[in-house]
């Protein structure tokens, strides 16, 4: 080993992007980064951001940061989607489209990985951070410092996956990197390593968050809030976090094994050497299928909050909702094999997993009916969260039925890896998960920021997303039946597929309009924030505890911890006119800490070091890690006290605002 190799590992000038579109993407990312840094410096906001946001252990602030990062990643992932649609609409017959095959493969791999790990997961943890402590009547999460570590690990993972745009390339092996393609023999560049380590780091953050919120919900509920009095969103989060705790370690192990294959020449999943590549597929889906439910359960919870509030009724069938969450949690570990019926595990194995997959549709169906029953004879307000719900309920049911169709092994042998499958899971993830999170974001936005979002632009965004979605994915169902496989970068002209692909491309463009509407909505809402201010803390006529405190809530959430006497705690309190007592006490809150950032920063160095085989950097990262943890361990001054007097002043201000309207 010579010195250059020691210092730079596998890095060299040739790893920087060579093709114009890849270079454009990289340059664009760098420019956006510089623009953000310039603006923050220009407005002298570094100190403010560092002191009040980056080092904050307040889950409300961490939640906002999660959502901000996720939105940036959503833009990145959507850009990938638009490129794919453009390629498939144009790359037919003699025309080769705009992308090379290899670049196209990188783009679909990045699109899937980014959308699941850094958009859906990020939005989910963002909303959970914002809402769960408030909803269960708690001042904080169980482990505030760990929460900050989780968030910054998520950022480190996102940074690593974006770095692959500029330094080196990304994986071409799809969003789940099946071996043997993802093994060193067939993917010799560092692309798959980027995939492994960005997911490993982000996944570690998710795992720690999962533990944190599981413990928070079990231990920090307000006095009197028994499990069967807990709001549905918190219930679904409890379900999702249980799944995180059981499923994410499998992902950690699987990624580590693939990394050992690639880095140390082991033979877990290699084609030769006694490896077993189908074991990888089993392991990754033993995590991957629960992951789908990790994402969708909180969306179900959001709708279970939105629908009762905007129908003016209590949620229908609360107990059956709870039972169906629990059923989904258990059943989601019994269906993973339906992702690879064609592996050839045999008729009885396939039959078992096919039946279980049909069975898991039942609790989901229970939920759909309960929401509809909640609306039935309600006084429905057609606000944008409600529109997202109604778009969801139609599309999600259709997509679900397509899923049950795929669950029949005999049909699956025809549809496996076709665009029908792609259309199915996008229906679940976009019109299920994403619509749900959009609804939740609109619903809880006034709670966090103190003013409501502009409804006009919100509704425009919804219609663009809905129409765009139907146009973009409707044709894919049909194309799947016609035999179009997923991940096609080119097809023959005489297949007659191009018109449908063009329609899908137009659909994607309309979704893009939806995104633009959302940007405008944000701009207009901030501009008109004084007009739309929420002085009551309860803009929608809410039912659960988060609406009982001011908007935005103080750092300590509740001046006096609430006591719960039934379901829909805040609604009942409003009906009976009970007002919380005004005897305030000092509150102990965690002090800000920058160590979470250091820990994640060093993990980033470790990840980058391993991707490029720069071993001294990885070792440096490990040492930094150890020192950071020591610093935290020997830091006694981690708490601060908010005085009763301070609380009294804040509360008086809130109550006087409340009284003036």
């Amino acid at each position, binding site marked *: 080993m010579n010195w250059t190799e020691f210092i730079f590992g596998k890095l060299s000038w040739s790893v920087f992007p060579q093709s114009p579109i890849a270079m454009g993407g990289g340059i664009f990312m760098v420019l956006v980064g510089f623009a953000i840094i310039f603006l923050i410096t220009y407005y002298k906001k570094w100190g403010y951001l560092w002191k009040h946001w980056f080092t904050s252990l307040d889950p409300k602030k961490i939640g906002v940061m999660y959502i901000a990062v996720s939105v940036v990643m959503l833009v990145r992932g959507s850009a990938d989607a638009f490129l794919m649609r453009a390629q498939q609409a144009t790359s037919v017959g003699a025309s080769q489209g705009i992308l090379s095959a290899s670049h196209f493969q990188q783009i679909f791999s990045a699109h899937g990985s980014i959308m699941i790990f850094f958009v859906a997961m990020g939005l989910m943890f963002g909303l959970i951070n914002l809402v769960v402590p408030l909803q269960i009547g708690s001042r904080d999460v*169980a*482990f505030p410092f760990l929460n900050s570590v989780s968030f910054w690990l998520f950022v480190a993972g996102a940074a690593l996956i974006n770095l692959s745009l500029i330094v080196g390339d990304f994986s071409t092996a799809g969003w789940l990197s099946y071996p043997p393609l993802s093994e060193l023999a067939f993917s010799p560049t560092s692309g798959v390593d980027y995939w492994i380590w960005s997911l490993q780091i982000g996944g570690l953050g998710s*795992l720690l968050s*999962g*533990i*944190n919120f*599981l*413990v928070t919900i*079990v*231990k*920090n509920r307000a006095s009197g809030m028994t499990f069967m009095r807990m709001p549905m969103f918190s219930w679904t989060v409890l379900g999702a976090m249980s799944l995180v*705790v*059981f499923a*994410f*370690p*499998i992902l*950690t*192990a*699987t990624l580590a*094994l693939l990394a*050992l*294959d690639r880095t*140390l*020449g*082991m*033979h*877990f999943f*290699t084609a*030769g*050497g*006694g*490896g*077993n590549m189908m*074991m990888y597929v089993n*392991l990754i889906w033993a995590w991957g299928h629960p992951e789908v439910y990790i994402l969708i359960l909180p969306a179900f919870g959001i709708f279970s909050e939105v629908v009762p509030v905007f129908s003016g009724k209590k949620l229908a069938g609360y107990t059956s909702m709870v039972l169906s969450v629990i059923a989904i949690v258990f059943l989601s570990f019994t269906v993973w094999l339906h992702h690879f019926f064609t592996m050839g595990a045999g008729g009885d194995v396939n039959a078992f997993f096919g039946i279980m997959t049909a069975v898991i549709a039942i609790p989901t169906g229970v939920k759909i009916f309960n929401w509809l029953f909640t609306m039935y004879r309600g006084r429905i307000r057609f606000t944008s969260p409600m529109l997202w719900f109604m778009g969801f309920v139609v599309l999600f049911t259709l997509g679900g039925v397509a899923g049950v169709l795929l669950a029949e092994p005999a049909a699956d042998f025809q549809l496996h890896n076709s665009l029908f499958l792609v259309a199915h899971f996008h229906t679940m993830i976009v019109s299920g998960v994403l619509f749900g999170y959009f609804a939740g974001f609109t619903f809880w936005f006034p709670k966090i920021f103190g003013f409501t979002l502009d409804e006009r632009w919100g509704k425009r965004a919804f219609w663009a997303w809905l129409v765009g979605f139907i146009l973009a994915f409707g044709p894919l169902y049909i194309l799947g039946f016609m035999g179009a496989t997923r991940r096609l970068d080119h097809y023959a002209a005489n297949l007659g597929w191009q018109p449908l692909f063009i329609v899908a491309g137009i659909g994607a463009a309309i979704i893009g309009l939806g995104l633009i509407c959302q940007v405008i909505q944000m701009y207009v809402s901030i501009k008109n924030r004084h007009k739309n201010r929420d002085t009551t803390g309860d803009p929608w006529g809410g039912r659960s505890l988060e609406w009982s405190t001011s908007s935005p809530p103080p750092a300590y959430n509740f001046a006096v911890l609430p006591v719960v006497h039934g379901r829909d705690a805040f609604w009942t309190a409003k009906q009976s006119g009970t007002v919380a007592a005004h005897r305030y006490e000092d509150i102990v809150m965690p002090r800000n800490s920058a160590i979470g950032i250091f820990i994640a920063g060093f993990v980033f160095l470790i990840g980058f070091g391993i991707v490029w085989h720069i071993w001294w950097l990885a070792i440096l990262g490990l040492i930094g890690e*150890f020192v950071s943890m*020591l610093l935290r*361990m*020997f830091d*006694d001054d981690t708490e601060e006290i908010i005085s009763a007097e301070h609380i009294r002043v804040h509360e008086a201000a809130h109550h006087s605002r409340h009284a003036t309207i």
Partner: protein
Amino acid sequence: MKSSIAHESLTIGNEKLPIESRAADNTTVFGFWMFLMTDFVLFASLFAVYAVLRGNTFGGPAGKDIFNAPYILTETILLLSSSFTCGLALLSAHKNSKRFVVFWLGVTALLGASFVAMELSEFGRLVAGGVGWQTSGFLSSYFTLVGTHGLHVALGVVWMIVLTTSIVMRGLTRGNLRKLMLMSLFWHFLDIVWIFIFTIVYMMGIN
């Protein structure tokens, strides 16, 4: 059940703890149990992988060709006795005897470190004999499963050293007692994992 024992042991010493602090400690212990459960799932995955790959020797040696029963038994005894001495450290904490806590933690760390040293030397012997992790799927999964456990033990030893330093410096404070509790949970957990490794990897491998 176990966590309530844990909770009891946190109220020891001459500090009278307010109810909120006890609840906070209780939450920490519960959270640590959750973490151990995730670690358990991680090991379960590695065990499953080992079970799938243990026959894939690819022309290389099988378990019975490389495992040395007396050597493994010595390792096992070292680790099991370290669990015992770790328990003694906790008992000393109950009696509020800082000196004995430090002593027994030292003994535990020493036993743990000897275990790690024995494992490393066994790995070194195998690799030097041309039986490395690159040889076959079986050996990849063997080195990874046993090595992951060994890495945990090594990290446990480091944690123990840091904790002992903290106890020497600051005494049996509430924070230190809580960390001692968590550390001992971790240590017993590693013991349990080792029992599985001993049985599934070594005993079933030798026969």
